[in-house]
């Protein structure tokens, strides 16, 4: 399997990369290439040119922001995020999710920005970023804009990114005190696309649920915020009764697809089970103010 002929550019700086993307309408940015290159080899994708971002060291790295949150360069590899003690301390949900992303070989190459721009409905990171209320910095020759993750994903492999725009940075706000996170997914084999997955962040404020963000994936066209389940928790003590109510309510939040691996009804049931388990872990962690 070989891709059709394509042009290749390897800019040495971000302004050069943005200029190349702005000037070549048929060009696609190449980040880790873990989805784009297989699609090209299968000849499902045939971009006229690739703009290889792998020389842009300024887009890699994990730093602490002034507010105590994190700023992660879009070209940071999954493996670097997975191993980062800073991420584990400041954004435990992200650390918890990393081992579920494909296989270690893919994580050593794939990038945060690449996964978010690709917007696969079964991908872990879009759901994690929505749950963390992350902000994505997006740049082009026309300027810079900052987009909340909750507004970034618009459908099946679809985002608000316009032609020539590149994700350059992901900012994660600091976790409020008394918060706990959990991440769960089920796949037939480790590393397969998840049948259903869920990312949750809850906050306990004087023994009451002060906030809850529950985001599912692999149940629709993109990450799905479970509004009914979140409302079921609001004001409760985060006890088992409230968790059961939220786990039941999550079925109203989704309209999952069916495929050869699982029926829609099975995915719906699985979403409830995983949400219940994830909330139980998250509240335990919030109560002990651990990760």
């Amino acid at each position, binding site marked *: 399997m070989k891709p059709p002929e394509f042009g290749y550019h390897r800019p040495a700086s971000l302004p050069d990369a943005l200029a190349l993307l702005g000037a070549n309408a048929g060009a696609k940015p190449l980040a880790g290439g873990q989805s784009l290159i297989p699609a090209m080899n299968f000849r499902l994708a045939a*971009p006229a040119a690739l703009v290889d971002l792998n020389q842009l060291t300024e887009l890699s790295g994990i730093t602490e922001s002034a507010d105590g949150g994190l700023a992660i360069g879009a070209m940071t590899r999954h493996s670097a995020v997975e191993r980062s003690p800073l991420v584990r301390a400041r954004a435990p949900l992200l650390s918890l999710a990393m081992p579920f992303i494909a296989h270690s070989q893919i994580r050593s190459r794939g990038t945060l920005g690449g996964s978010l721009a690709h917007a696969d409905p*079964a991908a872990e990171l879009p759901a994690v970023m929505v749950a963390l209320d992350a902000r994505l910095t997006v740049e082009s020759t026309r300027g810079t804009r900052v987009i909340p993750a909750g507004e970034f994903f618009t459908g099946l492999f*679809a985002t608000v990114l316009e032609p020539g725009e590149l994700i350059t940075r992901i900012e994660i706000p600091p976790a409020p005190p008394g918060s706990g996170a959990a991440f769960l997914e089920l796949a037939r084999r480790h590393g397969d696309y998840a049948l259903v997955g869920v990312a949750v962040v809850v906050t306990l404020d004087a023994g009451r649920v002060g906030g809850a963000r529950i985001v599912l994936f692999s149940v629709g066209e993109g990450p799905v915020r479970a509004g009914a389940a979140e409302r079921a928790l609001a004001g409760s003590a985060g006890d088992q009764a409230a968790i059961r109510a939220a786990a039941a309510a999550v079925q109203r939040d989704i309209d999952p697809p069916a*495929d*050869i691996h699982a029926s829609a009804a099975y995915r719906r049931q699985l979403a409830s089970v995983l949400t219940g388990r994830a909330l139980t872990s998250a509240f335990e962690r919030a109560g002990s103010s651990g990760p």
Partner: protein
Amino acid sequence: MIVQGVHLFPGPREAVWTLLLDPDVLAKTMPGTAKITRTGPDRYEGTMAMGIGPISAATFDVAIVITDQLEPERYTMQIDGRGGFGFTRGIAAVSLATEDGATRMHYQADLQVGGKIAAVGQRLLDSVSKLLLRQGLEAMTRELERRLAGGAA
């Protein structure tokens, strides 16, 4: 793959029937349809080009034969699509019922999808078909509203 559902059109059944079988409307409303022509009393042929996510532009030649017509109540479509990325073929049954001045359409399709597109994109077929159907029905509803409001016939 079974695709089924219900859609409510805000207009009388006769208008919906005419809309659904008008090749110009189909070309305008079905996602990715470049052109579609009536090549026989009950036969349509056309081309569709669809790009979703990493798939740039899958082009299909599509032939549709209408059978079992009972105007304005129901019909069956035999669908045969072929392209470089694979094929789809199957049968879709459409029925229309009057409901408080509106028209309730019930559709049920049994489609086989094969070739490269099915091998690589199997997990996405259900989501993609839901997405295309929703876009098509929304566009048809807008076209119906435009016609009922006195737009071009």
